[in-house]
């Protein structure tokens, strides 16, 4: 018997509880990524000499595997006195990793703002903080929302990596069920189907959002 429906139904509630952890990790990780990414992008514009440093930092983070970064936060940070539990360490690592990607998206958004907008705010004697908050960010963010959404989906698909440091998210739960019952087919396939469903739904949502934003910009 390759696929057992009753077993699949039996483990579904357990996996559903684990899915909540995966989704929590996604939302917390993305909150870190989106805000840290924005901070990096703003610093880059506001403080003249940071551009080069930040691009090297971004390149460093993007060139090394997320799994190693998760291990790094979980195992190396405690050596410097910062002991984190597995969930926090994992979410922090994923958040920092995607902050590097997000900061590039924000940068593209800022680059698309016409220079005249900066000049106008200088002419009006606005502080750079006011310029960012009231003029640049409201214009720069809406067009890049779909790109950020794609990274949210990508981040969600990386959460199974947290199983490597034994966070009880979906993948880890599926592995535990597998090793207890010697049946891997149902748990791992269900996890795959769950991710597939979430990805297809979120891709459709992002497309709808994109259309909505385009229509608003056209008006």
């Amino acid at each position, binding site marked *: 018997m*390759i696929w057992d429906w009753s077993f699949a139904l039996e483990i579904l509630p357990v996996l559903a509880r684990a899915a909540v952890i995966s989704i929590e990790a996604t939302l917390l990780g993305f909150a870190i990524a989106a805000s840290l990414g924005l901070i990096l992008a703003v610093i880059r514009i506001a403080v003249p000499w940071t551009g080069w440093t930040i*691009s*090297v930092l971004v*390149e*460093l983070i*993007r*060139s*090394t*595997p*997320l*799994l*190693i970064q998760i*291990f*790094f936060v979980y*195992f*190396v940070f405690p*050596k410097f006195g910062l002991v984190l539990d597995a969930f926090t360490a994992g979410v922090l690592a994923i958040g920092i990793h995607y902050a590097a990607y997000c900061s590039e998206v924000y940068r593209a958004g800022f680059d698309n703002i016409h220079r005249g907008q900066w000049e106008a705010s200088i002419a009006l004697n606005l502080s750079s903080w006011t310029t960012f908050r009231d003029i640049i960010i409201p214009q720069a963010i809406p067009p890049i929302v779909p790109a950020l959404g794609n990274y949210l989906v990508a981040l969600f*698909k*990386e*959460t*199974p*990596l947290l*199983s*490597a440091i034994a966070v009880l998210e979906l*993948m880890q739960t*599926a*592995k535990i069920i*597998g090793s207890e019952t010697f049946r*891997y*087919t149902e748990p*791992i*396939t269900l*996890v*795959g189907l769950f*991710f*597939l469903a979430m*990805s*297809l739904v979120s891709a459709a949502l992002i497309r709808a959002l994109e259309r909505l934003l385009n229509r608003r910009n056209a008006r």
Partner: protein
Amino acid sequence: MGIRTLVGMLVVSLALIAVLATQATYSLFLPGLLQGAALTIEIAVLGSLLAVVMGVLAALARMYGPAPLRWLATVYVEIFRGTSALVQLFWLFFVLPQFGVTLDAFPVAVLALGLNVGAYGSECVRGAIQSVARGQWEAGTALNMSRAQMLRRIILPQAFIAMIPPWGNLFIELLKSTALVSLITLSDLAFKAQQMNQNTFKTIPIFTLVLLMYLAMSLTVSIGMRLLERRASLGLARGKAA
């Protein structure tokens, strides 16, 4: 980021590895990690080859194939883009044997990463082919070429240049995903790092070296793809001038 900065970063990271290798605590771990890196490179190269083959085949099937082939390619792309690489790896490793197909960890690793990245790659192949101007097809029609001839001799060579940068990013993604194979017991760089960490608790030297080694490998791919792009577009620029 310019190619000079990338070369600079590569030189710095290699120099750092060399300097650290002279330190007693670090030199202890270097041979084992290099062994792991060799396996990482092997999986990355084979996986990249598979990814390119799958990417081109899936893109062509979706664009020009008969209906059943088109659906098959679409299902392949959606499944592999919609689920995690780790889930795919585990599925091939743990579930495939239930269907009577038992593979070693190494082929599973190459297969999972190649198929995963190939699905993303098919989208960039498709985009590159669509970016070739319509007039090129029309010119081919005027010359009475068959569609296969036009693709092979006119469209693909031009699409190839547009494909290089996105494939470069995908190769780096693939190189980074090789770390996942440590979770199906292959002793790649990530596996060696974890194993040494558990045995010695010398966490800082081990993970510093590992990060530097991955960085050096990724930068090498970036630089290689930049050079390839420069070479490939040289011919194009000449063609325009003539």
